[in-house]
C-alpha cells in the first residue's frame, strides 16, 4: 500500500457499518505510552528523538495484522500529505505540524495507527466503524501488550503509566465515540445533553477542532479522566451513555418527522439540490448540507444514496483530499470550485448508476 492509495480507499471509520451506524460514526480508543529511559518529547534532543523513533519503529514492525502496515516518516512528507492523514484521523494535527523525527504506522484498512514522537513517545489508536468499544479495546490491548514485551514503558507503582501531560496519566487511555446528531441540533436540545454529560465527567467536542464549533453536526464524546478507573470501567462509562444519546437523537428525529415533516423534507431536499448543482462551495457549507442529506437518507427521505457514500463525501471534500485529487496547489476559491465540481460529478453519477435504465 502507498500513501496515495488512501485518497481513494474507504477508511474503516467511513465504512458506515457496524452497530447503530445511522448515528454512531465510529468508536475509537487511544493509548499514550512513553519509554522509561528517554525524556518526554519537550526535553528530548534531536538524537533522542531519532533513537526513540528507531526503537519504536523496530517494535511496531513486529505487529502482525491481516493487512500490510504502511510506515510513513512524517519529517519527509509534504504538508498536503500530512494534512491528508489528519483529515482521515490517522494522525493528530499536532503530530502533523511538529518538528524533528516522527512517524506513523498505519494498518491497511485504517483500523489502527501508531504515532511515534507525538506528544508522548507512542500513541496507539484503534478505530472501528459503528458502536463497538469492546472490540476496539480488545485490539488495542493486544497491540499494547505486543510492544510492551520488548520495551520498558515509563510506569509508576501508584500513578500508573506516566505521560508528558498529567491529564493522561494512569491508564493513558482516551475512549471516544463520534456521533452524528443533526436532530438534536435542529431542536436545540444539544446543549442540554452536553451539560449533563459534563456533569458526569465526559468531554464533548466537534469533529475537527479542539473545542471549536462542531462541523456537520458531528460530536465526539470521550472520558475526561484517565486515572482511578480500570480500562474496562472507562470503556463502560462511555458505552453506557451512548445508547441514551442515540435514543434522544431518535426521539428528536421522530418529533421532526411527525410535527414538522414539510420543513424537514424541504431542508433535506434543498441540501441535496444544492450539493448536486452548486458551482462553488465552501467546506463548511458542504459539511452542513451533507449533514442534512445524511439524516435524510436515514429517514428514508432520500432513496438514491447510501450512508457509506455520504461518509466518503465528508472526507473527500476536505482541502487536502481535493488537492490530492487535482494534483495541484489551490487557493480557497479554486478549491471551492473544485469541491463543487467533485460533488456534482459524484452525486449525479451516483444517481445515474442507480437509474441506469433511463440512460441506455
Amino acid at each position, binding site marked *: 500500500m502507498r500513501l496515495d492509495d488512501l485518497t481513494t480507499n474507504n477508511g474503516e471509520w467511513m465504512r458506515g457499518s457496524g452497530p447503530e451506524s445511522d448515528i454512531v460514526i465510529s468508536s475509537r480508543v487511544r493509548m499514550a505510552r*512513553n519509554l*522509561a*529511559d*528517554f*525524556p*518526554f*518529547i*519537550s*526535553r528530548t534532543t534531536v538524537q533522542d528523538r531519532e533513537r526513540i523513533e528507531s526503537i519504536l519503529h523496530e517494535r511496531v514492525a513486529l505487529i502482525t495484522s491481516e493487512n500490510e502496515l504502511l510506515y510513513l516518516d512524517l519529517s519527509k512528507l509534504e504538508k498536503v500529505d500530512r494534512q491528508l492523514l489528519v483529515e482521515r484521523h490517522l494522525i493528530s494535527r499536532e503530530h502533523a505540524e511538529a518538528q524533528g523525527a516522527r512517524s506513523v504506522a498505519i494498518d491497511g484498512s485504517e483500523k489502527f495507527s501508531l504515532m511515534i514522537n507525538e*506528544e508522548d513517545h507512542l500513541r496507539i489508536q484503534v478505530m472501528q466503524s459503528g458502536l463497538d468499544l469492546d472490540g476496539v479495546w480488545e485490539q488495542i*490491548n493486544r497491540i*499494547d*501488550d505486543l510492544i*510492551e*514485551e*520488548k520495551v*520498558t*514503558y*515509563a*510506569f*509508576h*507503582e*501508584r*500513578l*500508573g*503509566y*506516566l505521560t*508528558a*501531560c*498529567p*491529564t493522561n*496519566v*494512569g*491508564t493513558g*487511555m482516551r475512549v471516544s465515540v463520534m456521533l452524528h446528531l443533526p436532530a438534536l*441540533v*435542529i*431542536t*436545540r*436540545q444539544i*446543549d442540554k445533553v452536553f451539560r449533563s454529560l459534563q456533569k458526569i*465527567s465526559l468531554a464533548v467536542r466537534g469533529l475537527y477542532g*479542539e*473545542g471549536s464549533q462542531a462541523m456537520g453536526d458531528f460530536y465526539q464524546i470521550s472520558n475526561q*479522566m*484517565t*486515572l*482511578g*478507573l*480500570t*480500562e474496562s470501567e*472507562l470503556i463502560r462509562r462511555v458505552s453506557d451513555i451512548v445508547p441514551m444519546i442515540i435514543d434522544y437523537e431518535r426521539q428528536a428525529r421522530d*418529533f*421532526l418527522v411527525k*410535527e*414538522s415533516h414539510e*420543513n424537514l423534507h*424541504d*431542508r433535506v431536499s*434543498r441540501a441535496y439540490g444544492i450539493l448536486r448543482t452548486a458551482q462553488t462551495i465552501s467546506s463548511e457549507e458542504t459539511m452542513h448540507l451533507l449533514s442534512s442529506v445524511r439524516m435524510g437518507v436515514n429517514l428514508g427521505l432520500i432513496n438514491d444514496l447510501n450512508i457509506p457514500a455520504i461518509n466518503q463525501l465528508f472526507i473527500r471534500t476536505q482541502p487536502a483530499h481535493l488537492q490530492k485529487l487535482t494534483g495541484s496547489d489551490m487557493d480557497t476559491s479554486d478549491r471551492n470550485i473544485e469541491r463543487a465540481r467533485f460533488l456534482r460529478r459524484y452525486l449525479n453519477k451516483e444517481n445515474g448508476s442507480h437509474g441506469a435504465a433511463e440512460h441506455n
Partner: protein
Amino acid sequence: MKCQNCDKPATFHITELTDGKPQELHLCEDHARQYLTESSGEPTPASGMAALAQQIAIGQTAEDLAQLDQQACPVCGITFFEFRSQGRLGCPHDYVCFQKQLEPLIVNIHGESEHVGKRPSRPAGGSEHRTQLIRLRRELKEAVDEERYERASQLHDEIQRIESEES
C-alpha cells in the same frame, strides 16, 4: 423564504421545543449561528494544561513561588517554572521529584490519585531504574563537553550495563 431578521435567504429552520408547543424559526446562516450560540451561554473554561498548571501558583506567597519555580528535576533538568508555563513535564522522574506540587493537580483533574488499571508484565521498579539512563546520558554528554574523559568512560560503562539488562 427570507430570514426573519434580515433580507438574506433563510437556510436554517429551527424548531424550538421549549414552552410546550413547537415553534418554527426561519433564519439565515449568520442569524442562526448567533441564535444558537447566544443561548448556550456558558463561558468556555480557559482550556489546556498550562492554565491548570497556573493554578498551582494560587495561594502561594511570591517568595515561596519564586523558590518553587527554581526547583529543577535532577534527571532531565526541567524547572518547575518551565513545567508551569508549558504544561508539559520533562521526564518520568518529574512525577517523583515534583510529587508534592503535582498531587493536588492530579486529584483536581482526575478526582483520584491511584492507578487501578493495567500494569506492565515486568516489575515497575525496572522502569524507575531505566529512568536513571536519562540522567546518565545527560551527564555523559556534559563530561565529554568538559573533556573529563575518565568520568565519561565510567558513565559510558554504566550506561551500557543498564542498557544490556533489558530483554
